[in-house]
């Protein structure tokens, strides 16, 4: 019976162990997850108890059923332990997944917030850019306005320069006119007319004995000598006075030319008239003669023979040619070379006359050739306003002609060609 008792105690202990273990599992993993396993375990235990009572019928050896009971209990324990470890692993995997999920979620959250921040920044930048663009546009408007004002100012400055130039030139010429006029007046006043009358009255007084008076009287003897000297003096005076009056007339003509040359700046209405181009060119050269001479610029003329008259606006043509000769002079002076030369070539062809002014001055770089007729474009360091060629090209167009520039580059001089049609091309704005 001893054996039996030990087996009973062992199976009792195992049974208690199973119960305890079942409680533990239930507590750890919840009744839902372990419920079926425990049910199976207790069902087995119940089966054992039944077999215990059924033992005698099963003819088992004394105490043998106790041993089977203990073995089955141990098997149940082992199964439960296995169940626990499985559950543990399962839980562990579940936890990892959860952690991974949480991590993923966190990362997504972080990235979302980063994206939002980036988005905000982008929006901020877009706003800044928008204000910047608006600012730039405003600045551009301002610059355009300033540019327009500058152009107007330079035009006015140009006009005042023209006015100053006219004043200077006319002032100088007027001075000579004034001096000559005064000289003429002085000489006329000093003319010995009074003394001639005296000599005549002296002779009349001695009309009765004129022969005696002229040969014996100490005054009469000198009279013929005086009269011949007076005659030659009066002759000299006449020559001098004629010369001076001729000088005055040429100076007045010069003033007229200066004024005529500048009239176009004052928007004088154009009138077409018969013009000999070579005469016009000569006028232009005469107006600038002293300046060209002063700067040592030589003029070479190459005029075709038998040039026809053109019907055109003389003042407009004059304005363009004056501007061209001024430019040519500046180009020559700026080049500082020894032999400064401007060649004026007049040719005839295709219903138009061409006046080409070629200088051997500084020349024009290719990139400037396109801009040279632009309003406000100038290369002159001082005094240039950049509307001479601009208005020249416009005026040439108005006349039905054209103004062309050519240069092979810096240092090679330049040629400006004015083409004037033989007849005025009808201008709808003037008819």
């Amino acid at each position: 019976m001893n054996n039996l008792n030990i087996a009973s105690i062992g199976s009792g202990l195992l049974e208690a162990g199973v119960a305890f273990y079942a409680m533990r599992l239930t507590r750890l993993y919840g009744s839902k997850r372990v419920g079926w396993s425990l049910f199976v375990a207790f069902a087995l235990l119940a089966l054992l108890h039944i077999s215990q009572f059924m033992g005698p019928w099963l003819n088992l050896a004394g105490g043998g059923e106790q041993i089977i009971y203990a073995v089955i209990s141990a098997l149940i324990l082992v199964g439960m332990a296995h169940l626990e470890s499985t559950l543990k692993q399962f839980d562990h995997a579940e936890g990892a997944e959860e952690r991974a999920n949480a991590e993923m979620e966190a990362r997504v959250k972080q990235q979302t917030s980063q994206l939002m921040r980036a988005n905000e920044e982008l929006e901020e930048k877009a706003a800044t850019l928008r204000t910047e663009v608006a600012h730039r546009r405003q600045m551009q408007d301002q610059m355009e306005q300033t540019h327009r004002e500058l152009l107007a100012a330079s035009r006015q400055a140009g006009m005042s320069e023209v006015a100053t130039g006219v004043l200077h030139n006319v002032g100088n010429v007027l001075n000579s006119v004034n001096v000559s006029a005064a000289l003429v007046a002085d000489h006329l006043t000093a003319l010995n007319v009074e003394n001639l009358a005296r000599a005549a009255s002296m002779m009349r007084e001695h009309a009765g004995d004129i022969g005696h008076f002229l040969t014996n009287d100490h005054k009469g003897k000198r009279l013929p000598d005086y009269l011949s000297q007076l005659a030659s003096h009066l002759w000299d005076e006449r020559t001098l006075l004629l010369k001076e009056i001729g000088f005055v007339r040429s100076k007045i003509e010069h003033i007229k030319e200066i004024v005529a040359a500048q009239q176009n700046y004052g928007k004088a209405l154009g009138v077409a008239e018969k013009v000999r181009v070579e005469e016009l060119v000569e006028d232009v050269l005469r107006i600038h003669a002293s300046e060209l001479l002063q700067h040592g610029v030589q003029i070479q003329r190459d005029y075709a023979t038998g040039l026809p008259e053109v019907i055109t606006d003389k003042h407009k043509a004059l304005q363009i040619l004056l501007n061209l000769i001024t430019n040519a002079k500046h180009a020559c002076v700026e080049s500082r070379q020894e032999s400064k030369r401007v060649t004026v070539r007049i040719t005839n062809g295709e219903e138009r006359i061409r006046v080409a002014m070629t200088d051997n001055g500084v020349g024009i770089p290719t990139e400037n050739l396109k801009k040279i007729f632009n309003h406000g474009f100038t290369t002159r360091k001082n005094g240039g306003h950049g509307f001479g060629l601009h208005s020249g090209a416009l005026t040439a167009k108005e006349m039905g002609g054209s103004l062309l520039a050519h240069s092979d580059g810096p240092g090679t001089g330049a040629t400006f060609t004015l083409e004037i049609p033989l007849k005025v091309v009808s201008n709808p704005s003037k008819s």
Partner: protein
Amino acid sequence: MKPTEIIAPRILVIDDNIAIHEDFRKILCVGNSPLGGLENELFDSAPKVAERIPFRVDSASQGQEALHYVEKAVRDEDPYTVAFVDVRMPPGWDGVETIERIWRICPEMQCVICTAYSDYSWDEITSRFGYTDNLLILKKPFESAEVLQLAHALTRKWALGRQVRFCLEDLALTEQQDKTEIR
């Protein structure tokens, strides 16, 4: 040469316009009538015309050239009395700069600035030269009489200025001699 005896005062015209040189010559270099002597003999009541002073006129078209003339005149001890100077003389020095340079070597020279319009205001000129009495402004176009008056008056002023200077130098010399004699 004694300071008061200026037989033919030297005048310098500085202007880039050659026509102006001629203008000054026409005004200043007027000879006397060749018939004067004979007429005075023949006609008792002939009106007497004052003898013209024959000025000697030199002309330069640039400031540099003018300065060269002035230097030479000072070296030759035959200085210019008056200069008529244009304001605008491209491409070289303008009138004011030319006068500044002339006065550095010949401070007694009387200068007349000729201008067709006002390049320099009075204030600008005084700011350059101070209140000088050696400078006058003549507006173009000018009258012959103005030029003659200026030439005569300024030549006289120049001569008197020189005379005063010589007298003072004489006095200083005499004083010096007296002092040495007393000792």
